[in-house]
């Protein structure tokens, strides 16, 4: 039996006439955190959208544990174990935190939501006291916990996080990234798209730098931490984390 893996092969995608991704190859194993670094406009979010099915690639493929996901709608990909926490978090602001979490397990039915909720509460204990609050009234960190918790309610095999630290304090970012590490240790494959390279590399197994739609550098997180280009461009000239 093959090891579980989310495989992205020779992916080309873009908007209108312009290509943004020019043949991306990347794989994420179950229980692995792969950090994706890159400047604004490099194509990180485009890649995340292709994996989740929000954007149809021009060519190439995405497979999860050997199943081709090409042509599947986002809702069908959720069934195949793919979850995306988008950059804007995608919460339902007028609904409560409890409703947001319940809808996260929409595909699996109400019984599943009841069974799954304690697990999410274990990972993000502050959510327990926020269940009746409207998601739109939460702080940035609370919203991010709700968004990740909602994605976890679907019991994903692969989780794609697009800029989870956006707008958060370093302390909150650190804690959320540590939670992601713990999830990976439980077997979930995680693609971590981050600008905060120092913190993200610290919890990742492997990393890749995407530049102008191509993978420029890839390797273990530890290797990239000492890569001169990564140090210069993403670690502020410091080679330590």
């Amino acid at each position: 039996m093959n090891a579980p893996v989310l495989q992205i092969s020779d992916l080309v995608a873009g908007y209108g006439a312009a290509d943004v991704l020019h043949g991306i190859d990347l794989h994420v194993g179950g229980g692995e955190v792969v950090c994706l670094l890159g400047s604004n406009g490099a194509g990180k979010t485009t890649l995340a959208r292709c994996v989740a099915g929000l954007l149809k690639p021009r060519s190439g493929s995405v497979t999860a544990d050997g199943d081709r996901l090409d042509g599947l709608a986002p809702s069908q990909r959720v069934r195949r174990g793919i979850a995306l926490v988008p950059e804007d978090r995608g919460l339902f602001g007028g609904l409560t935190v409890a409703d947001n979490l319940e809808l996260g397990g929409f595909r699996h039915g109400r019984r599943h939501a009841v069974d799954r909720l304690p697990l999410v509460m274990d990972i993000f204990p502050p959510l327990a006291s926020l269940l009746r609050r409207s998601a739109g009234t939460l702080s940035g960190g609370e919203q991010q916990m709700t968004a990740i918790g909602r994605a976890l309610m679907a019991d994903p095999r692969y989780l794609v996080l697009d800029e989870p630290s956006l707008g958060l304090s370093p302390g909150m970012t650190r804690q959320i990234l540590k939670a992601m590490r713990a999830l990976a240790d439980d077997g979930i494959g995680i693609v971590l798209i981050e600008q905060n390279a120092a913190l993200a590399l610290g919890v990742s197994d492997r990393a890749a730098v995407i530049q102008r739609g191509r993978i420029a550098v890839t390797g273990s997180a530890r290797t990239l931490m000492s890569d001169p280009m990564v140090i210069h461009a993403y670690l502020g000239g410091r080679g330590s984390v």
Partner: protein
Amino acid sequence: MSETAQFLITGVVAGAAYALLSLTWALVRKVSGQLFFLSGSMVVLGVLGTNALTERGWPMAPAVVVVVASAGAVTFAVDVLILRRIARQTELSGTLVMLALAFAMDELLSLGFGPEPRQLAPAVPGPPVSFLGASLQRQQLLIVAATAVLITALVLAGRSRWGKAMRACAENPTGAMLVGIHPTAVRTVGLIIAAALGALSGVLLGPVAAMGASSGFLLSLKGFIAAALGGWGFLGATVAGLFLGLTESLTAGYISSDLKDVVSLALLLLVLLGKDSIRLRRRVRNVRVSDDRREAPLPSHSVTD
């Protein structure tokens, strides 16, 4: 006393009718964010369609089923052919297209069934009943009872998983897709339910009020006023519908029936102006709250530590 009771009872019955109409608006607003100006046309389709079939000898029950299903089918076609294509347009574009569709639908109803107003035979015939000194037709009792049942069903459905999914689709279609909901399908189901509810309202109201193809727009407007007054929620729209019916009835009874529509439109203006000021105050308060609440840390017992 009996005069006042009569006005109040008339107002409750009219209010129930407005509540039904406002529910179609609230439902469509929840699932698509659009304004359902087709609401009144569906009510008129319910009256004229049922009338046409029963005049041809159809029994009432199958005629109602066919007409309600037709309203759903027409709305499904309109959604697939037009509304889905404008779903990502601005709210103004959507509103203008809905208005155009409502006028086109009224013209089609006029072509298909003629311009004359029609009235249905009462579903519950019999002499009026006396209540608190006022006279009440049995059909009016049925309207109030059916409205109560339909509202309860909608409120309960709105709190179900599917009801929440409908709201999620209207609030954030991309977010809905990412949790495994198919927003287009959910939206279409919501529109079909609203249209069917509109046609069913027509069947209920048909025996107490004659309606023709030109009645649709004013009916739509009343539904809009009640839904807007009630804040677009099912319960709020119901209460606002009853309030609107009572206000109109008392205005018509004690002042002049010519003024009842003026009063409801004035009421809408007042509430919209008031709501703008409330919304602004809330926005200011939310900004202050979000400033105060930035980055509450995770507690020490989190697994993240």
